[in-house]
């Protein structure tokens, strides 16, 4: 196990779920309950020092019990190291802690995740849709059950039989 993942596991033995290292990327999965503490630790601990938020992403695994995966990617500018922090949320209770109070940039990134995947963020200051229109009611486009070509409402449009002259 990579030493960064090892440190997370040693500090949070209860919240640690798993870790992988593939193609040089270290990734740590933690439980939803400890997510905020782990993030705070990653940001504040001098050995970790992850001060730069790279992006927030989300993955939909429809067959899994905990369907949604939220992925944060952090970089430590002084230490030049990268870590990926992941957590899972089930569809019935689709909410995870927001990290906007630790990294300011998480604001827009988490809004995008909410907009695209429908994962809610606890304590987010302004959780609204960002790319889709505010009154969009057809669901969350990046979920796997959202059809690629839309939900078919365009097929219900009236078409003219002939071009009127």
């Amino acid at each position: 196990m990579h030493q960064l993942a090892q440190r997370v596991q040693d500090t949070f033995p209860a919240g640690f779920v798993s870790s992988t290292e593939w193609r040089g990327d270290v990734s740590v999965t933690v439980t939803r309950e400890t997510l905020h503490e782990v993030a705070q630790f990653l940001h504040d601990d001098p050995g970790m020092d992850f001060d730069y938020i790279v992006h927030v992403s989300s993955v939909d695994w429809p067959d899994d019990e905990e369907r949604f995966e939220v992925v944060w990617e952090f970089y430590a500018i002084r230490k030049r190291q990268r870590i990926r922090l992941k957590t899972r949320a089930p569809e019935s209770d689709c909410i995870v802690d927001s990290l906007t109070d630790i990294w300011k940039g998480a604001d827009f990134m988490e809004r995008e995740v909410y907009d695209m995947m429908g994962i809610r963020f606890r304590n987010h200051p302004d959780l609204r849709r960002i790319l889709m229109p505010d009154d969009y009611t057809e669901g969350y486009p990046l979920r796997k059950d959202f059809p690629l070509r839309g939900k078919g409402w365009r097929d219900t449009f009236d078409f003219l039989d002939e071009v009127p002259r």
Partner: protein
Amino acid sequence: MAFEDQRTTVYKVDPEHPESESLPTLRTEELLLNMGPQHPSTHGVLKVILELEGERLVKSTPVLGFLHRGVEKLAEDGTYHQFIPHTDRLDYVCAMYNNFAYCRAVEKLMNLQVPDRAEYLRTIVAEVQRIIGHQFWLGTQALDIGAMTVFFYCFRDREILLDWFDELCGARLTTSWYRIGGVERDFTPSLLDKLKKFLDYFPPKIDEYIVFLETNRIWVARTKGVAVVSAEDAVSFGLSGPTLRGSGVDYDLRKYEPYSAYPKCEFSVPVGKNGDTYDRYWIRVMELYESVKIIRQCLEQMQDGPIMADVPSVTLPPKERVFTNLESMIQQFKLFSQGFNAPPGEIYCGTEAHKGELGFHIVSTGGGKPYRLKIRSPSFIHMGAFDYMSRGYMIADAITLFGTYDIVMGECDR
């Protein structure tokens, strides 16, 4: 907001005329102003709702998504090769660097080694693209403020490079020249000649741009001390590229995580001090000189060799073989229609585009299509800091703020 900014209160009472505070008859009211979606200086379709107190910005709320095309969803439906033309349309001003960032991400996923010559070609073209991007930025940013002349000069020189791209790959803007594992075609002698001529022609022109802008008192007054962001805040917001380096953080992936031919070249990363629009301008102009330096070194060091990795299960066959050889044609057809078999896994690969860190987060479950592809676009993340950076400034400074980020809405909304 979780982070309160005190700058807004600074301007409420004019310190030289404190009596203005006690004028009882004046009714004050916050004014909401919609700027955009169609506005010439928003560089695309972007709407910002400005809350004004007089002419001061109290709060600004960017409304994004007018150019949302669902590129991430489209990626899940196509093979890895098929997605390359989509990346052109992200940051349509600088297509080459988007291709580059995407191909690097897929190469990391597939663990591909790109041949040396291809790495040099990639670096040269990427730096040419950086010059184009910075020229475009310099011209339009000055134009937004009202400095018309430099716009023409920048676009005149940009045109030379766009024609060069045209000769290289047949397109000026939507290039799609990079391929997974290499590049589409090699330089011809004529291209090399033209590039060398341009390298001699260009540096004096940069001096010209500088003279045009820095002797313009209005332009200087509207950039110095405007949109200041501290290093700590810039890092916390996830700003990248010249926008971050303007605040004094030397975060540049070309140096931090060297890739392609950059580790073999000597160049410096300009870093600002004050974190204002002027410093960010200065960094971009200095990067023009650095790009010229990098291209020169690459041209000197470049040796003959293959331009595509030889992994037939992943990389495309050379074009001339496709037209003459049945097996190569089948290989090309299968790679584009079915794709290659990617191993299951998850990677993130960031590349220093001229706007900032352009990254691709790819989740693969095996097979020819990405399971999830997330684009980390610098423009989107820079817009996250817009409200914070604009507070307390004049309404006219909102325009220079779009300029200072170098936003392109195609990339911001994806």
